[in-house]
């Protein structure tokens, strides 16, 4: 039935209850003392964001020079959905058995994966979800796969240690988890890791993957990683991505990681 609604994909606007009504909800605080001026300031900020018919439906006095607002309005901006290019991880997720089989068929060894929660980050639940036997949401983790040799270095691992271990274990893939993002501490830490890997000359020999609830594939690419995985990632997605990449790079990898290194 909703075929009745003719959405023009080049100028998609927010939708409340009528096509192109542009309705959005906003909330924020301003360092302005509660009162009519504060409300007016909130309106103007919303207007600058492109809202029309701005309605400050709620203003709370936060004490001191602070006011909290909830605002509704019609956003006049639109997005051209036909022109979006979303960097996507090409994961054509394989099942557990299928994947083990795939690796056995294409590679004569296990894939070595080294993972850690680096920097000051101690949130291991996410990386454990990917690595541990137990896995996540009913999906087994990498440790359970016969095709992987999985090393989980745990929490608060310095980048130096991770890189050293990756070299020592001749890793195919390095997995980094970053959960704390306050003041962009993860950006600094991830950039440092890539720099270090480059300095050690291993950046192109291994797959570098980063994950965490605030990580997107796009951001990962920007920072020089091969892939980024966000909230709700399943171990099989990561496993499939790694396996396909490793198989693809198999020859080259063999060449650049000779026995004597």
């Amino acid at each position, binding site marked *: 039935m909703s075929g*009745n609604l003719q959405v023009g994909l080049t100028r998609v606007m927010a939708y409340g*209850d009528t096509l192109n009504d542009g309705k959005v909800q906003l909330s924020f605080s301003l360092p302005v003392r509660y009162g009519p001026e504060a409300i007016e300031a909130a309106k103007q900020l919303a207007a600058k964001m492109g809202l029309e018919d701005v309605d400050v*439906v709620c203003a709370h006095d936060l004490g001191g020079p602070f006011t909290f607002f909830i605002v509704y309005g019609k956003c006049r901006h639109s997005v051209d959905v036909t022109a979006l290019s979303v960097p996507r991880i090409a994961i054509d997720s394989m099942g557990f058995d299928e994947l083990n089989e795939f690796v056995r068929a294409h590679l004569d060894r296990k894939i070595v994966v080294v993972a850690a929660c680096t920097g000051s980050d101690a949130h291991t639940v996410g990386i454990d979800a990917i690595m541990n036997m137990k896995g996540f949401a009913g999906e087994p983790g990498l440790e359970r796969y016969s095709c992987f040799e999985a090393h989980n270095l745990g929490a608060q691992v310095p980048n130096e240690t991770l890189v050293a271990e990756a070299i020592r274990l001749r890793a195919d893939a390095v997995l980094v988890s970053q959960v704390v993002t306050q003041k962009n501490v993860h950006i600094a830490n991830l950039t440092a890791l890539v720099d270090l890997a480059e300095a050690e000359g291993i950046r192109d020999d291994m797959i570098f993957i980063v994950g965490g609830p605030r990580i997107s594939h796009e951001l990962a690419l920007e920072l020089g990683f091969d892939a980024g995985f966000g909230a709700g990632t399943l171990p099989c997605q990561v496993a499939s991505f790694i396996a396909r990449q490793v198989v693809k790079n198999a020859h080259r990898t063999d060449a650049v990681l000779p026995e004597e290194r």
Partner: protein
Amino acid sequence: MKLDLDRGIIEECRACARAIADEVVREARAVTTTSIERAVVRLLGVDGVDSSGVPLPNVLVDEFRRANRLAGGAAQAVAELVALGMTPQQVAETAASGELRARWCEDTEGGAEALDAYRTRAALEPYVEAGLARIRASVERRDEFLGLYGHGQEPLLYVIVATGNIYEDVVQAEAAAHAGADIIAVIRSTAQSLLDYVPYGATTEGYGGTFATQENFRIMRRALDEASAATGRYIRLVNYCSGLCMPEIAAMGAFERLDMMLNDSMYGILFRDINLRRTFADQYFSRMINAYADVVINTGEDNYLTTADAVDEAHTVLASQFINEALARRSGLRPDRMGLGHAFEIDPALPNSFLYELAHAQLARDIFPEAPLKYMPPTKHMTGDVFRGYVMNAMFNLVGVTSGQSIQLLGMLTEAIHTPHIQDRYLAVKNAKYVFGAARDLGNEISFAPGGIIQTRAAEVLSKAHAALLRANELGLPGAIAEGMFGGISRRSDQGRGLDGVIERVADYWNPFEDRLRDELGLNPSEGV
């Protein structure tokens, strides 16, 4: 009964309400209304509009009225023409083209008197039967669906759509069903209840709601049937059987398989200033149609608390529920089809407001154990703080599942701002599903301290309701309404909209549907006469 209420008082309340209802029905059955007669012609199959857009039922009934034939019932007048070889629809079309007046003079003036009443009435029989069959078909179809998909788990999730445009409403309804809603109510445009006709066709322009038209019913019903198939749940459809066209909408809803209809014995009187006599007559007949169509009615006691205080006036809600129950019985509605209304409207700032809400909700459940209670969310104390509102809705949902409500009208976090946006409804459904799931068995788990705050409150409300019913019985319901007993609003029998559409029945007044329905619903034919 979790509240350990005094059963004697409850029985006295029921007895009082029965007496009040008998009096109301007696008066209702002494009259007919233009809208009842329009409903009759609709049930006979009349539909469509004339060249200037006036619905044919109006055209026809107006014509009868001009000819002074309404007091005997439109059916009689139609029958006479049908006996002469026309279909009811042709009768209406003839009226629209202005020719009926001509034929009228020609054929029936005097002539009709000659036709014996039995023969003319018999001529209408196939149309009466067809109308009823159409309703029965709806009922059967619903039963099929319910057999297929099940009845769903109570409290059922009820949400409204109100874009003003039936096609946007469909979009919103589909999304709601996808999210998990069980029931979709299409809210009516603000002014429709005061229109003395039912708009026609698909409509895309309404304010605060969408016009209730038969075509709109059909469009939404079709969409919800598709949604039922997609979700594997039977998605129920609701509209408003109220306002000046209450009986017609009852008929339209019966045809188009609406599953629930808002129908209150006093709402129109109090909140729309519709004449009292008109309303009582209309609701009496409307509810018979609802009953036959196996529709669950939703009453409107919740509305009292939007103008009156929810603590001070809680007893008026209960008193009104007793009255609605008694009146609904008289129209043949089964107790398990009486969606008596009440609401979570206590000022959230009141200490222990949650306990009082629980007491009120449990009270309704204990007193009306079979009723598919309709529980309304906070509206009055909602503000622009959508976060606060979302939490109030969660507390409401918790009371709903704990006290075993049947129909949970989900609150919208944007209640104080606008009619719901697509995500507001989604969030409301998720809120309810979370709370219902997390506290599914809470009601069975807990009991209330004897003589504690909750039980004491419940007993107090019951005792005040009892006093109010005694008084209402003394005064008669019109007297109680004039006194402002409900919602703090006072109305007089000789005022209000639509009074001019009330007509005293003549002795041989005939409404074949009323007769058949009384019969089919097992109602005592002389009750209230």
